[in-house]
């Protein structure tokens, strides 16, 4: 019991838990769309870009967090814009923008060694550093995301499935894609304190990929990914506290454990299903005979049901023959191409 209650004797833990759970839910939900758009490394790219902003903030002596927000938003917009240009694939855009901004940050840091920047916290996260202001920011971002996600969920899903068709059907697909990139940048910024720059991609991608192994439609997929994100954050923070390791790696390792556990279960179920199917097809004649008898009984039921419905089906088929549409029972043959034309459907009049 102490394992659960002891961490709460420290003030920072409750704050970290709240922030971690909200970040986990946010990253899990957004991660679904990141993974399905095949942009798994955008989280990594955005977080790497943070260094440029943090170094710039240190140069002009403002809050590094503001620099991080600025850099991530700029990186998000640049990735969005560059990735839509002819000849530049989205993954290449992520690589170009993130490494450029990272290099910019490194250049600034190396040119100004007298300015101290705590890169360890930035890279690996620090739950001790979570403040009440951080929690407020995380919760506000989460509420905005939840509201926008609630209102535009259908538009977002259609855009991810087929953006060209979504645009043709009246959905503002380009605006949705841009808003999604901005939302992702905001989530990356609020996640840095908890998981650090280097591991943000993992908390975005792993819960969504785990959920993808289980869920068959978008709604459950988002719900499961969010729940897994929260669970990984909670378990990871407890592990981080008791084992005394950085919070970011602990959260990512918890998430990865869940992924491999689910993967092993789904692969095993798949293998068992294949084995059962093989066994069914390699049964002896007696067993096959029993199986055929049972199939005959089933066929009889289906036939009797079919007799009841065939009349209406026949009527519907007949009615679908359109004016000018000439259907014929004559079967066209390859040797008679004119017959093929004669018997082919004639549309319209």
């Amino acid at each position, binding site marked *: 019991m102490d394992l659960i209650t002891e961490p709460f004797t420290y003030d920072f833990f409750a704050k970290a838990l709240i922030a971690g759970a909200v970040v986990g839910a946010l990253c899990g939900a957004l991660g679904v769309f990141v993974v*399905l758009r095949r942009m798994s490394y955008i989280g990594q790219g955005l977080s790497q870009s943070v260094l440029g902003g943090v170094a710039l903030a240190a140069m002009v002596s403002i809050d590094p967090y503001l620099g991080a927000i600025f850099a991530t938003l700029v990186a998000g917009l640049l990735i969005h814009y560059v990735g839509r240009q*002819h000849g530049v694939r989205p993954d290449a855009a992520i690589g170009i923008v993130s490494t450029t901004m990272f290099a910019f940050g490194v250049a600034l840091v190396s040119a100004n060694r007298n300015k101290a920047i705590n890169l360890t916290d930035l890279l690996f996260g620090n739950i001790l550093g979570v403040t009440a202001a951080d929690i407020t920011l995380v919760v506000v971002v989460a509420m905005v995301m939840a509201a926008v*996600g*609630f*209102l*535009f*969920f*259908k*538009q977002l*899903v*259609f855009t*991810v*499935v*087929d953006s*060209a*068709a*979504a*645009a*043709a*059907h*009246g*959905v*503002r*697909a*380009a605006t949705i894609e841009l808003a999604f990139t901005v939302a992702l940048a905001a989530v990356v910024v609020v996640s840095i304190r908890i998981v650090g720059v280097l591991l943000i991609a993992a908390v975005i991608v792993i819960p969504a990929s785990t959920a*993808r192994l289980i*869920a*068959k*439609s*978008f*709604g459950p*997929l988002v719900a499961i990914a969010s729940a897994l994100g929260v669970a990984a954050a909670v378990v990871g923070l407890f592990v981080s506290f008791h084992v005394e390791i950085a919070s970011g790696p602990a959260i990512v390792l918890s998430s990865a454990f869940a992924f491999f556990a689910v993967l092993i279960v789904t692969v095993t179920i798949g293998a068992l299903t294949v084995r059962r199917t093989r066994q069914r097809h390699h049964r002896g004649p007696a067993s096959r005979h029993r199986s055929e008898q049972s199939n005959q009984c089933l066929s009889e039921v289906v036939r009797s049901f079919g007799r009841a419905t065939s009349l209406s089906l026949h009527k519907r088929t007949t009615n*679908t*023959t*359109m*004016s*000018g*549409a000439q259907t014929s029972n004559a079967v066209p043959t*390859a040797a008679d*191409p*004119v017959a*093929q*034309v*004669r018997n*082919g*459907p*004639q*549309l*319209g*009049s």
Partner: protein
Amino acid sequence: MAEPVVALRGVTAGYRGVPAIENVDLIIEPGELVGLVGPSGSGKSTLLRCLTGTADVYAGQVTLNGRQVRRGHPTHDIGFVPQLTSIETDLPLRAEDAVLHGLTANSRLVPWYSKSERRQAHELLERLGLSGYARTPIGHLSGGQQQRLLLARAMISGTGLVILDEPTSGVDLQTLQDILRLLAELHEQGTTILLTTHDLNWVAAGLPRIMCINRRVMADGPPADVLHPDVLEATYGAKVRIVHDGDRILVTDDRPLDHPTHLLS
């Protein structure tokens, strides 16, 4: 006189400054069924994308029901069926939900679809012979079933205009006939249909009006006028023979009919 559903007047359009079609005129009146034919790269899909607002229009005017179409400003006037090969099927998406996407632009701003919207989707799935597949992931459906699903998605929005990009490519004969019957049914109900096709015999020859394009309009009219050896040679750069049997037309290669049919003979 009623406003044309589709009007392209002197349209030059393409992508990134490179025109794919030049000076194209196309007027489609309400209830018409029109096919676009032409070789690969002739600008058929670009013409369709002018209507969906996803191509750059450099000159001329594109209007849908009298309203000008502008890039990036989608209209709600189109049911669009993309090429089957452009669809990502490895997605967690059930057939029923895929059809409901067609209602997204006009649906309430909540994450779910209403009961009446779901009923509409089920009715369409039943009409298209997919009633047993409502909860089947789209990746588990055959090519023909996916094509019918995309058609259902276009139909559910209830717009007066359905445009289809290669609706019969990659489908088997049975599905091809099913799709043609469905289109004929839609046409009878007064829906305006514009489709592209490579299939001159099964599809184009059976349409009431076809337009031959190869960057520009080569011919426009009923198949009897457009499917002419000179027009097709100018469009495709291939010599063909046209066989007439009553009011039916067959486009074949220019070898005599009694010539052996081996490909390499």
